């Protein structure tokens, strides 16, 4: 490959990496709070709430993300076809974010649930006796401890998400892996794949570093 093509490749990859980053951050932005909501519904004492949530968790965690992407992207038109109505399609990028969000919220929900259940009942009781409200207890007492509890599992999940963003290309989102694939074939060289690999690696080193420094910051208590 000539220097010029390499230069072009790198600039193209930088712009494609912006898409990858967008998928990553938007997914987190929506799935982290959604996961918390799902976890709280999952822990509801009412079966009528609990059961559909368990079903949702089963679907999301029990089927490949790549299938969910295709389903969510093509479903509206297929369904509209069946019902003879026109259901507007989600734009590719929006469908990708929706699929990633629903999928990751399911994983996050289960991690939250584990983290919440790991907080001793004594903490809830101490807060109750002190007169803290349920909301205060959750946000002031429970959640900070949950965050410490779930940090290692979350770190894993974040790193997986970085790599999973590559699946968005299935429905035509032009992210870094798609670009690498295309230019690999155009240039008959696996260098673009290597560059893409390097990008994921750098991104994940940042994520990993972030989690370990956050872990250190929470090390002040046990």
């Amino acid at each position, binding site marked *: 490959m000539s220097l010029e093509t390499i230069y072009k490749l790198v600039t193209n990859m930088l712009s494609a990496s912006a898409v990858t980053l967008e998928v990553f951050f938007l997914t987190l932005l929506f799935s982290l709070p959604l996961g918390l909501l799902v976890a709280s519904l999952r822990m509801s004492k009412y079966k009528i709430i609990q059961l559909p949530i368990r079903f949702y968790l089963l679907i999301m965690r029990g089927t490949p993300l790549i299938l969910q992407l295709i389903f969510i992207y093509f479903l509206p038109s297929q369904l509209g076809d069946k019902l*003879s109505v026109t259901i507007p399609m989600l734009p590719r990028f929006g469908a990708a974010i929706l699929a990633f969000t629903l999928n990751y919220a399911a994983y996050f929900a289960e991690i939250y649930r584990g983290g919440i259940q790991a907080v001793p009942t004594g903490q809830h009781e101490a807060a109750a006796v002190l007169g803290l409200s349920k909301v205060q207890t959750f946000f002031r007492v429970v959640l900070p401890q949950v965050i410490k509890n779930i940090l290692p599992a979350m770190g894993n999940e974040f790193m997986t998400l970085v790599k999973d963003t590559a699946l968005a290309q299935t429905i035509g989102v032009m992210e870094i892996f798609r670009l690498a694939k295309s230019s690999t*074939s*155009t240039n008959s060289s696996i260098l673009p794949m290597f560059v893409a690999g390097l990008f994921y690696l750098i991104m994940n080193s940042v994520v990993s570093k972030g989690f370990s420094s956050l872990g250190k910051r929470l090390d002040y208590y046990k």
Partner: protein
Amino acid sequence: MKKLLSLSLAVVLVASIFAGCAKKDGKDDTATTSKSDATYVILEEALAEEEYSVGFRKDDVALCQAFEKTLAEMKDDGKFAKIDKKWFGEEVNILDKTKIKADATDGSLEKVKTAGKFVLGLDASFPPMGFTDNDDTIVGYDIDLAREVCKRLGVELVLQAIDWTANDQELKSGNIDCIWNGFTTNPKRQAALCMSTPYLENSQVVVTLAGSNIKTLADLAGKTLTIQGASTAGDALDSKPDVKSGLKGGAAIEVDDNVLAMFDLKAGGSDAVLMDKVVAEYYVTNPNAGK
């Protein structure tokens, strides 16, 4: 609210699984007239003219020439024309016997003969050249040709589905012996591979849904165009920078194969697909292909 949303999505997902099953059973295929019956239209203006070849490793010249020679024999005894008619209804091949040489001395042909098998790499979703039919068998024009050549050379034909974007890596690494799947010849590929004498003409054409307001290449301005990633459709588009820059987003949307591209078009995810004419014509006559 979010709960409701995710809930209804889950329900919809399941509903569609059942819907999908119903379709497979063919129970409701005739009931509704809607987008699924939409037919495709090919724009008259083509983006680029192309020819198909078979791609071998750069060093496997003897193997390539043996295949060319066998194809020429098939042309002479009418077998080639028979396969043409089976898939296209008429004789379409353009194999030029005068261009075929037999001067190679490398051991590639012997190697294949000793192994007793010949591995053909294809993406298996490229009708009618090579695709997977409803019985999960890989069939197609190229497959019939390859089967006949292998029969005559006395080796077993092995079909290996590959990820199209990595086709040259597959070839170079020795996982496959040739790429034979509507493989367009061009100078870049001729430099990197041993490309056989072309056997079929093709062009890159734009396919739209019937009733689309895209009638000319100029109408593509501001529209979305889908292509198979890593295919020569991308090269064809690059050769028409004015068309490319006019597209929405200034580039085509790339998906893994033509089946997905057509699916996307039918679903309304894109306005047009740029693809091989040979494949496009197959879709026009078989609008439900690739379902």
